[in-house]
């Protein structure tokens, strides 16, 4: 089991440029997430929540400041180093699941293990136990189109945890789900946090915020802590 890591944001800024036009998304963001913490990030659409999550995972680069995850600074890594680092340390859950439609549920879950050259039998074993953890062992041979939205998101969660990352980043994981499915997914996130994973969840859903240890609210590119 991997050790949970914390995240520190130092004066993080992000500006998008299109031609001569500049749009400031994040401005002087400073806060810390403790190892094993469950943090919810809320705010209006376009406020920069997902951007901050992308900066945390090294999917995008800050234009100012730095993001430190554990001891690593993703923005200083090469593309190949980032791939290796993400594969070992970060589990990512997307709002639209982003499962690969031609792969069965268990094959989707196996993908992160391919990166490490895990053999087929071991991949299959670990994928099955991840699916079991999310309650979908009986759907292992199903293709994504044969699953409900909630089940797809649970497969995506199994994929995010199969390589035992130290931090899980979730971008509106319940955004496309009905309340029952959202409830199941949130239960799973709770369980992951109880297993020691650091959890950063971007959401509009106050239920998520209620379950998190702490909620940060983002407005006009800056965060403030709120009580939910």
């Amino acid at each position, binding site marked *: 089991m991997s050790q949970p890591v914390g995240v520190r944001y130092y004066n993080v800024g992000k500006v998008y440029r299109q031609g001569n036009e500049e749009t400031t998304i994040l401005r002087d963001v400073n806060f810390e997430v403790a190892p094993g913490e469950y943090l919810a990030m809320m705010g209006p659409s376009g406020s920069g929540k997902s*951007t901050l999550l*992308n900066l945390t*995972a090294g*999917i*995008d680069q800050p234009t100012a400041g730095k993001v430190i995850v554990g001891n690593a600074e993703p923005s200083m890594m090469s*593309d*190949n180093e980032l*791939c*290796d680092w*993400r*594969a*070992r340390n970060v589990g*990512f859950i*997307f709002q*639209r699941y*982003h499962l*690969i*439609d*031609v*792969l069965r549920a268990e*094959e989707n879950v196996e*993908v*992160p293990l*391919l*990166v490490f*050259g895990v053999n087929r039998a071991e991949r299959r074993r670990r994928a099955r136990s991840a699916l079991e953890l999310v309650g979908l062992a009986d759907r292992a041979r199903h293709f994504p189109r044969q699953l409900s939205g909630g089940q797809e998101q649970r497969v995506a969660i199994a*994929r995010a945890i199969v*390589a035992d990352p130290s931090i899980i980043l979730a971008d509106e994981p319940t955004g496309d789900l009905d309340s029952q499915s959202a409830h199941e997914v949130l239960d799973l996130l709770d369980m992951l946090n109880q297993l020691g994973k650091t959890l950063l969840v971007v959401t509009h859903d106050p239920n998520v915020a209620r379950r998190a240890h702490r909620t940060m609210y983002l407005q006009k590119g800056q965060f403030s802590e709120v009580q939910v």
Partner: protein
Amino acid sequence: MFAQLTIWSLRRRPWRTLLTAVSVALTVAVLTAFFSVRAEIRRVLALKEAVPYQRLWLKPRNLAAERTQQLPLSLKDKIAAVPGVVKVAYAVFDGTKIPDGGRVGIVGGDVESFRMLSDLWSVSKAEFDTWLNDKTAAFVTPTIAKQYNLKAGSMWEVPYQTGKLSLKIAGVVRPGGMSGPLVGVHYEYLDELGGRKGNVADFYVMLDKKTDFRPVAKAVDEVTASYAQHLITEDTMLQMRGAKRSHVIPNLLGALGLVLLVTTALGIANSTMISVRERRAELATLRVLGVKRRVLALSVVGESLLVCMLAGLLGAALTWWAMKDGVSLNAMFLDNLKINTLGLLGGLAASLFVPLVGSAIAAWLAVRAPLHVALRDVG
């Protein structure tokens, strides 16, 4: 990982994959045939160029009248005496009907004429020696060998005029000198059966390669002036022109192959680009999960490469199957054509070239999109 991703990707759109495979198989089949025919033409031309003399051919003005327009054998010594002439050979052409209804052309030549032709026939020294030492020995073309199941050492009886030729097969010649349904026998054997009466149809006048053939040809023409129905040609050039004319067929195959090659490559480029565009979010997801750009690009190219290589093998196998019994495109030069190593390599090279060129740009596009932008695409 790359292999696994490639195999998984092949599940996508099987019909598109199948159509691509058919197109590649067709291209490879045509190109394999093109390269095989072209290699055979080169072989024949090289054989003709390697013959150590130039040859003048004293032949009937009307080739169709070869059996009736005869020259006396006694002319041989007169022609041999012309300055510049190295050797003189002679031959007759005749034909006969086989009991099964087929027709066979008979070439009756002297030792010199057969020695001259053996350079072009690609027969072995042992085979030629067998022919040389046995008056009843004969060479047959692949067409005849196949039709009557003959090989070196076979015995074969052929009706001829009032009797029959009892032939012992010395060997099967390769195309380039004697093609079509022909059998080559000793002139003496034909003459013995009473068919020639000391006359021949053609004289072959051999000169040193460096000799200017024109004054020699003029002198030979003067010696044979009383035989107006015959003319003399520079046969080496004639043969070369004939062989070069045979390029028409492979050139057509080559042009067709090139068009197929380009259109298939463009087709693959187009379909791979569409596929990569449709899979932008999926490819970005794989990168988020830790798959490197290089591996993703290789899997995009590898998908096309795998399909094209399998289809290429199928195309080459089809060509081999179509040509396994020999194909005749030109009785004189391109008889009994079979797939050869060069053709096979050329065809298979095309099956590598097409996917590499076709999918390279798509592979590059697949990995250069910024992750945070590509992830917003929702299929």
